[in-house]
């Protein structure tokens, strides 16, 4: 019978230590991030923690200026980010991962976006985003 175990707390605790954890299915090998207790590929609940490292491959860049928002009823997710540095959205994957993700990507500007997009896929480093709720989330930063 499936047993309860904490998923969120160990994940966030490890972010404080600079570690990004995913989960790997012991039955089919699928790796999921952010971690989930049920395999997204085969439905197994036989998953273990896996350290995904702090580098990711960025496959796509969806450039937009995150400081520009619509109506006040349509605000963006960075309201609780301590740093107000602009970011854009990327699609990427971890070298050890088997699934793509969306994440914030820092360091992309109007000036360098065309060059970066022409170089895709590129490697980016993890950016541990401080939120005002007292925890960190995961984004990425392009290498200079």
């Amino acid at each position, binding site marked *: *019978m*499936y*047993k*309860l*175990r*904490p*998923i*969120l*707390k160990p994940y*966030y605790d490890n972010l404080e230590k600079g570690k990004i954890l995913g989960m790997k299915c012991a039955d089919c090998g699928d790796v999921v991030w952010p971690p*989930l*207790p*049920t*395999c*997204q590929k*085969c*439905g197994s*609940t036989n998953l273990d923690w896996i350290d995904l490292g702090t580098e990711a491959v960025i496959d796509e860049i969806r450039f937009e200026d995150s400081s520009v928002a619509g109506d006040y009823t349509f605000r963006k997710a960075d*309201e*609780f980010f301590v740093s107000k540095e602009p970011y854009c959205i990327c699609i990427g994957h971890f070298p050890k991962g088997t699934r793509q993700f969306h994440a914030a990507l820092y360091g992309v500007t109007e000036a360098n976006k065309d060059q970066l997009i022409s170089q895709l896929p590129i490697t980016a480093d993890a950016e541990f985003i401080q*939120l*005002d*709720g*007292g*925890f960190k989330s995961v984004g990425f930063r392009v290498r200079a």
Partner: protein
Amino acid sequence: MLKQKFARPVSVIGTSSLPQRTFDDPEYKDLSVYELWAAACNQAMQDAGVKPKDIDKVVYSQMANFVTCGNVMAPVGSLEEWAGLAGKPITHIEQACAGGYLAFNEAVNSVASGKYDIVMCAGIESPKHFNARNQPAYMLQPIQKYDGWWSPGRALFDTAYSRFDGVSDNLLTEEQGKYYIKHYGIDEKTLDDTYNAMAINLRYNASHNPRALARTPYSEIAKKAGYDDVMAYMRSKNNPKITQYIRKSGSVLHNVEAGAIIVCSSDIAKKYQDHPITVIDHAEVSNTQRFPFCFHQMNVDVRDALYGGQDNFNPDDLDLMITTVMTSGEQLDSAEVFGYLPEGEGYKYELDGRTRFDADKPINPHGGDLSFGHGFGCAGINMLSEAIFQMRGTAGTDQVPKPVNDVLVRGMGGGHTTVGILLENQD
């Protein structure tokens, strides 16, 4: 044998019901509603012998997700992926504490229509804790810190006409007592003793159920307080009246809940489950407090709709009744209206302990909302799960000690909706 009322017969093949706790309990330390949801869904799927790929649709019930889960709207995608169900159709039901029952009915209808073969309904609720919008779901705070948290007097107040509605200002708690005294001629002291006996009976049941929230028998509590006579304790200031009729022991206990039920077309049920349970029928009505004794009337209307299609049905033949008991009057009124206890005589059954799980007319063998606990939109799921365990004979130490083949599950939520569901062992 009862006549199942669906164009395509539907059976229950799996269920789960997590222990009724709060996030203050060490058993639920460092967890969030998402871990509980994943456990409830996966345990139900394991119980049914199905994998996530076999589930055709999900019906999810939660009342307070926006308030208690970081102001998140419709977290259906996240919930699905936690249970390996991403990409499936999912419907969110929010109808206060009737939501769990209605989620079950929606799952049943989805199969009965022929559109889907296997459907899971599942619920989650965290009445006493919330996570702030700027914090992850495991960073929980007591609900008292949430500005504008609900109380029945406010959240169920009719803002169209600024009138008392639902359970606001104890309409529910009082009107059933008034109705009983008015129609059956018992005095207020007898009603008080009846309600106290009911609380003792339900706690007795819960003391045999490790999944219940409050498990210490009142006899033990009374002794610790210096009372040899438990009824003297129940009448004392240790158990104060919170309304004219209802004492503290007669009021619902809130706790975090998670549970799931899987239904499928009856013709494939045996492939997955040795002991499928047939869903006979369901009925539901909603009403307002425009008319006095609305809660009693909703029971009458559901009873008539549910029993109307059954020939030669005698509710006295029911083996078990499970019914919402937000406050004491609800159990007594519903048991009599649905014919499980004789009209005007039900109070004697409570006074004599005959509604305990091991007596001749068991009601709420798990302890009911007064002792088992209550988690808003998930409550109906867990009430139905208890019925399923009892019908399989796997309820454990609160198992009713006789064959449990015909069960009435009756629920109420928000003061606006009453539901009745008939289940039968037909295999």
